[in-house]
């Protein structure tokens, strides 16, 4: 089971729950399962079928460039972080 961390600003939708364990293979499934349990999450994290450009996903210890397609393994942590522009 992957551990998905709920961003503090979304915890109003999860009634304060900070993390959930999900049986998922990729980020798309994370979004789907979160949306099932906590309606409204998808709208906050996504722009159409993709992650919102304001958001980047961190799986395990890695910031991913693969968005919804990012693979997730058991015991991975999943974090939704602000996107970054570098110098």
């Amino acid at each position, binding site marked *: 089971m992957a551990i998905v*961390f709920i961003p503090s*600003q979304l915890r109003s939708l999860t009634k304060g729950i900070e993390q959930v364990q999900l049986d998922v293979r990729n980020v798309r499934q994370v979004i789907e399962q979160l949306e099932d349990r906590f309606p409204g999450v998808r709208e906050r994290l996504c*722009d159409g079928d993709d992650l919102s*450009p*304001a958001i980047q996903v961190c799986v395990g*210890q890695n*910031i991913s460039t693969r968005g919804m397609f990012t693979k997730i393994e058991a015991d991975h942590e999943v974090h939704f972080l*602000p996107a970054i*522009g570098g*110098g």
Partner: protein
Amino acid sequence: MSQETKQASSNGKYRVLGTRPVRHDGADKVTGKAIYTADVKAASMANGFVLRSPHAHARIKSIDTSAAEALDGVLAVMTAEDLPDVTDKIADLGEGSVNLAHLSNNVLAQDKVLYRGHAVAAVAAVNVHIAEEAANLIKVEYETLPSVTWVLDAMKDDAPLLHENLYTSSGGEKADTASNVGVHLNFQQGDLQKGFEEADAVVEREFKMATVHQGYIEPHAVVVDWNHDGRIKVWASTQGSFTCRQQTAEVLQVPLSHVTVVPCEIGGGFGGKIAIYLEPLAAVLSRKSGRPVQIVMRRNDVFEATGPTPGAFVRVKLGATKDGKLTAGEAWLAYESGAYPGGMLGPGCMCVFSCYDIPNALVDGYEVCLNKPHIKAYRAPGATQAAFATESVMDELAEKLGIDILEFQQKNAAKEGTRRVDGPVYPKVGLVECLDAAATSDHWNSTLEGPHRGRGIASGFWFGCGLKSSVVASVNSDGTINLTEGSTDIGGTRTSIAMQMAEVLGLDAQDINPRVVDTDNIGYTDVTGGSRTTFATGMAAYEAGLDLQRQMTERAAELWDCNSEDIQIESGNFVSSSQTATFKELATELFKAGEPLVGRATVAPDCSTNGFGTHIVDVEVDMDTGKVKILRYTVIQDAGKAIHPSYVEGQLQGGAVQGIGWALNEEYFFDDDGEMRNASFLDYRMPTAYDLPMIDTIIVEAENPDHPYGVRGVGETPIIPPPAAIANAICHATGVRMEELPMSPPRLWKAIQQNQDGN
């Protein structure tokens, strides 16, 4: 002169990595042959000039270009009406994304100008002087509006509103009333109240930071030829030819395949040459005039209309136990994003506590529009402002606890397994190694004597990213290699990339001929930014080397009549039970025996390279004038593996000196009308050679597990610690803790006066 530079680790296991070959493009650059964008000359090329707003905030009521068009020698005139209307589309630029309507609007203002210097029209003429004369004949009628240039003022309810349709997004939830606040971020970890209750000492301070510019010496420049077949060729000064191509195509609403971007040599970027400014203007002027059009920005326009990086207000509160363990941290950040939403708040919030293990923490951040140019990245964007606050408070807290600051940092340093306040857990990182290197450095162990002298230390963190890179390696008949790549070379990356291919193939750096080619001639490659180029494009070069070895092993098996499994690669040589050949020997053989050899690789590493650094500085303060002299400076940084140590040192030294300028003198100085009063190198005051000592470097090598040679990005981290390190040194020299950047002489002198009156 100060001590020679050191490198921490030995270099035993590599032939090429860790050596210091002369860069491949060096001769061109010391003889004046290297071609930068302003050096490009196309047949019958016209010159462009951009008319800019004299007001910080105004509605454009009318634009009359007739007099300009009538001037002898004028070839084309354009306004925003000549640009396609782009929808509110977001374009992913690899590193960061951009709202196309805002990008197009920034390129050429439509109904409103949002900052002084905002482009409103452009002219192409037979020479730049006529273009300028013509631009000055364009009559623009403005209705001026009240302006705002300080972030906290722009957050007030009664502040002048830049965008009627901007609603604060809090984790994707939109506010119901419009304001200048584009984004609100919040991170939480642990139990903040409990954390501060456990603390024996707490320090809280507020810090103000002025807007600063990247300060590259080459002004923005472009040449565009809009051909009669609709194909657009762009010669650009850009950190990323592919992102330049995408932005240009999107703003002009043409297919990507119709735009070719030729990355010329680029005279510095530091994050400020990722967004486009001039490309669509030159393109439209070219289409209208039927000639290639060159536009070179004037220096004052570079200051007034490009960059800069955010001015900010940051409040930081930290608590620790008497044995020096941090128990809680709270930060409140307000970052300006300039004329449009989308700035550097995210990394600011993620970096404010990123150097330390803080079990209980709260970070609140706001990103605010105001009447300045749209904020751009500048070397570890957003991190320097945050670190100035946190590292100043750390120093004060250590004093309060009576603990040595370096020991205090070591006790709380982030390491493998530490969870950042934004959530992720660090893999293997090198902060502890940097702090240990500081503790044993000559500098830290030297005594500093004399009146009004002080020593300061501060640390910093930047993510460093992977993103996408492509390379192609064509093997010549003599076994040398032409390596084509898409990463524009701003500081010697041709060489650091070629060295990684040379290492894997057992060649010398000079056997590889690296070429940065245009967007038609190489696979997609992201910007030279985010400290990624030596890491990611270097990784692609390594992979392309392996690709060649795979192909050559197969072919050698035929040649040597054995199974490919029986051929081993030993330090670049191909070895079977009966035969041995170097790469060059085998390549020469194979050239005679059939198909040419071409290796390729594309990579998109999913990781941060996690660069930590620690800086030590000694200062002397002239108590009569408030002027600070840097007596000695040492940069310590984890490079993972320093491919070309000279260019790693160069990144550490250059970044540190930009940070020194930021700390002491650099700032956007606005008058009450929102006009920048110091838009020149004379009054913006970047450091000259005469303002500095030698900058010592200590390269720590805590190998990055996510790179075949352990490379970490190094470019950005060095700009983060200087303002805090210098502020801490000033405090130990004078007893005054500075809470505002820059710590310019008038400001420091005033603070010293107030401190003396206070005592």
